[in-house]
């Protein structure tokens, strides 16, 4: 069963997405900030991480930068999800080898389709 880690400080988002993704036979883990997400990622080694950028304690960029330093998670697929759609953020996401950058508001259906295509 493929593992997906959802990291967002909005519990409604993680709840909504995990219900849908679990019904699609994915194993889903959720975290509410970058630090929590980093710890969980190093422990579970997910196949895909959906990562918000602006979060308390540790932001999404820092968390992914840390993940890239670890050989176990250096190549894990990451999709950034953020209200910030400016080019600098996109560049930073590319630097961190993110597979996609989705600007909020977003269509959950499109995100699910994207996940299905990537690891389904």
């Amino acid at each position: 069963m493929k593992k997906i880690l959802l990291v967002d400080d909005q519990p409604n988002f993680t709840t909504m997405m995990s219900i849908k993704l679990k019904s699609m036979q994915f194993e889903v883990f959720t975290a509410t900030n970058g630090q929590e997400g980093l710890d969980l990622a190093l422990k579970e080694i997910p196949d895909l991480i959906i990562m918000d950028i602006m979060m308390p304690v540790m932001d999404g960029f820092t968390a992914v930068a840390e993940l890239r330093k670890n050989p176990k998670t250096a190549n894990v697929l990451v999709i950034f999800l953020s209200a910030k759609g400016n080019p600098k953020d996109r560049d930073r996401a590319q630097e961190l080898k993110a597979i996609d950058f989705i600007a909020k508001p977003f269509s959950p259906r499109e995100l699910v389709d994207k996940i299905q295509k990537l690891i389904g």
Partner: protein
Amino acid sequence: MKILNQLTDSIRYALLGSKDRPYPDTYREELEYQNRRLTPVFMILGLFIWLPYIPVDMKNFPHQPLMPLTRAGLSVLGVFAVINYIIKPWRYWGTMIVSVGMSYLVLGSGFCALLSGADSSYIGGFIFCLSLFALVVPLPYWLMLTTLTIAYVGFFSGAYALGIEFKTNSQRYSLNDLASSIIVFNIIGYVQHRIRRSHYLRAKAVEREKAESNRLLLNILPAKIAEELKTQGAVEPLFYDSATILFTDFVGFTEAAKVMLPDELIAQLNNIFFQFDEISRKYRIEKIKTIGDAYMAAGGLPEMNNTHPIDVCLAALEIKRLTNQILDLTEHDSGSKFWRLRIGIHSGSVMAGIVGQLKFAYDIFGDAVNVASRMESTGLPNQINISADTYEAVKYFFNCTFRGSLEVKGRGPMDMYLLHNLKSKYLNEHDAPNARFLDIYAKLKGGARIEPKLIAPSTSNGVGSTTLPTASVRGS
């Protein structure tokens, strides 16, 4: 090169027309548009079409020098047409070029037919030119009628004056053709004109209907959503992780409905909601719907922003101020106290999208919507009841009072606050938001998050660079 490009554009314009052009306001302008499309073709025809006839005329009728001169005259007109086409000296230059050129062609061919002594092939040419004028060119009907009349009357008067006798069979045959063409061209020309005109009127009516339906669509749906619906035919529901929802409800409306005339009640409600709509527009929040006497709006969608809790609170304060004024008036006039309002606000994540196939509605869904509704229903008359989530987002800007943790249906106890007014440090002497507030607001709009360091006095340079509506926010 420029002229070549212009010519290419003109040919493309003549053949394909202007894509998505709006129909002009008058039929005359529509004819002008059609004539302009034809002008490049007519200029080329005018310049060259009669030149090959000149040697034939000279050979057949060597004693009629006016004949080749008449032919050459069309080429001279063609040159003038090109000049007019380039400098466009008149408003209706397309109609001018086509009508002058075509009139000359018709009258000239009739004149040549006379000079030929009513040669049957020349009369045939004359009829051909008449048919072009009557059936092809999009000229105003009165002009067509006048030119045809002049051409026919001129030809028959000329034939009579010159003493032309239609002796041969072919001449008589051509004369019959010419006589028939008077009826045929006038009737078909008239029908053609009516068809052209009715096509324009119908197209114009369709265009008006389309504009009206677009206007209605914009009344029902947010502009961004309406545009997406028009261009893509569907709107994907979107997840907003932060929005602020406002609910209002009139206390005692049901009692009011019992004692007031229905039309009077609806008129008053309509008037109040109209003003709510204006307030929503002013603070850039989206009116979602009204349900009976309840009004629902949301900030932070369809365009996401960071200021939505503040925008909605400012709007709520203005709504409260407005309804207090209405209450004062109605109490004074009729002693009724029906227009007391409960307002509830909550911030949270929502899904937003279009619902309905036949009747579209932009609506929002999610637990946050239910909580906002509960904030209203557990609120107090003439007060703004906000949730802890909204309070956290606006506490640095507004004076609020903690109400306590109250039981909410389906949610258990929830912390609630009463929103009173903008803090005095953010108000100027006219009770409107001051430069310091506007400065912070601008930073929030630029993407800053609401946190203590943002609102610390050191961050304010006193220069407001935002377009926040200068609402007069008064305390209750």
